[in-house]
């Protein structure tokens, strides 16, 4: 029988709201990208029918808009949870305002990306690099919501989209806003690729159960790492 030589302790890292946010968000992004692609470049349908008999493109757009609302509220909830949630979900993780975060960021670059250093990075929640990328991602979320709802505002009479009417004039017109919205979609696609790969990578080399942690919420952390983290927290140094 093969076993690991370290004692692991279960740590409840991702609370239920964080997990629900993650999966709603993932689903929304997939739906928004697929419908967004279709809206940008609709399928070629040669049809002899009168327009009266079908509405498929209208439905695609409706799914895009409804999902956009879900995405927006889900995102707003996550911002709230950055203040209400546990220390792994807190906003302090994401904004790189401390020296320790930048130090860890470069460590991750050396250890996990360039692989020129061997010492493992011992963070329990997100490592500093991941947090930094999520921080950028949150800005992309915000910009995508602004441009999307800005474009939508003209079509809507309701209150919420009308909060975004100022976006289009800011960029000079719909054309530019649509363009930004389209380019940002590629950022989400590239992010998803790298994100999924890195989850597999960390699970493969660290064996802390990072993949399943976003389903069950638990990670398995080495006893000594956890003890060190606790000690740091008592001194008020933890990230």
């Amino acid at each position: 029988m093969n076993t690991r030589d370290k004692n692991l302790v279960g740590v409840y890292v991702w609370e239920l709201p964080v997990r629900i946010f993650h999966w709603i968000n993932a689903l929304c992004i997939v739906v928004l990208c697929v419908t967004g692609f279709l809206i940008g470049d609709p399928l070629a349908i040669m049809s002899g029918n009168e327009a009266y008999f079908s509405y498929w493109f209208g439905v695609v757009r409706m799914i895009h808009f409804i999902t956009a609302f879900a995405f927006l509220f889900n995102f707003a909830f996550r911002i709230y949870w950055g203040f209400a949630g546990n220390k792994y979900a807190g906003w302090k993780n994401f904004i790189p305002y401390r020296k320790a975060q930048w130090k860890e960021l470069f460590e991750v670059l050396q250890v996990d990306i360039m692989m020129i250093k061997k010492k493992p990075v011992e963070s329990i929640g997100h490592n500093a690099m991941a947090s930094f990328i999520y921080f950028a991602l949150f800005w992309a979320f915000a910009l995508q919501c602004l441009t999307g709802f800005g474009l939508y505002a003209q079509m809507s009479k309701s209150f919420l989209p009308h909060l975004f009417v100022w976006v289009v004039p800011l960029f000079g017109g719909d054309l530019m806003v649509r363009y930004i919205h389209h380019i940002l979609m590629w950022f989400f696609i590239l992010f998803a690729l790298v994100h999924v790969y890195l989850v597999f990578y960390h699970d493969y080399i660290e064996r802390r159960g990072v993949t399943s942690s976003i389903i069950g919420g638990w990670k398995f952390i080495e006893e000594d790492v956890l003890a060190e983290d606790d000690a740091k927290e008592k001194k008020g140094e933890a990230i």
Partner: protein
Amino acid sequence: MNKEKLSVYEECLKKGVSRRDFLKFCTAMTAMMGLESTGVAQVVEALEKKSRLPVIWLHFQECTCCSESFVRTSHPILATLLFDQISLDYDETLMAASGEQAEKSMHDTMEKYKGEYILMVEGAIPTGNEAYCCIGGRSAKQIAEEAAANAKAVIAWGNCAVSGCVQAAHPNPTGAKPAKKIIKNKPIINVQGCPPIAEVMAGVVVHLLTFGTIPQLDSLGRPKAFYSRRVHDTCYRRANFDAGLFVQSFDDENAKKGYCLYKIGCRGPSTYNACGIIKWNEGVSYPIQSGHPCLGCSEEGFWDNSPFYKRKPALNAFGIEATADQIGLALGAATAVGIAAHAVATNIRKKDLIENEVE
């Protein structure tokens, strides 16, 4: 100087326009401006009583298509209105006077009607080197600034004056700028389009005459009555859009059937104008009705959103013309290769960690 006291209506009578035609014109204008039916009386009363509106019409970097559009309006009264009645005190293209006389005419108007005259600007203003557009020994910028100083309001005609149009398109060799970037502290009515629809131009002038105020403007300074709806939302082909019936190329069966032009680059969904309702040439047609996609000529920077016949704007990145999707796909492929390389490297470099187990 008796002529100046004549009202618009009296002027029309003198030109041989009947009362009936005058009322028809007022009704059409009221409808065009989106006023309620009682507004007709207001328009009639105003045009019966109010006399000339002093106007200085400046031409800078432009092709005069705005003026051309205006003179081709379907209502003969409009021509009267503009050329005799609102009385262009200065217009390089249309005035009889030239040279020093013309310059004098402009200065006379600026003195005599200080704070009353309307400044109409057609064309963009070069700022890179002001010498690119000089009239009477002075640059466009100087003239615009001087004329605007004592104007009651400014009307920017067309895409050139509103957002620079083709002169301001990349790489903008003359540093062309729209009126709003040069003229500050004056209300500016941006009448967008390349050119604007004649009836829209007339509607704005009649509004000024009738109410003496600038019309309600949207967030980009365009009159709401004409620019609050997208060409897409007033398009008679819209049902085909929602049904997903698209023209694939100009010569296919779908084009013949009059399907939506979205896939061949129609800018209707991002263009605010009244083409679908007022149309052109006495309501005969408009580009989409003639089977041509909207170019978005009433939007800022529409020249830079080429190619016109594709949905996707091209990026001039790294000297190669490509769409955002092509670049996105290339980055996606590069990421995939990077991931594969990283995965292989992981198995080599992190061997100790991976095999860190005991029997």
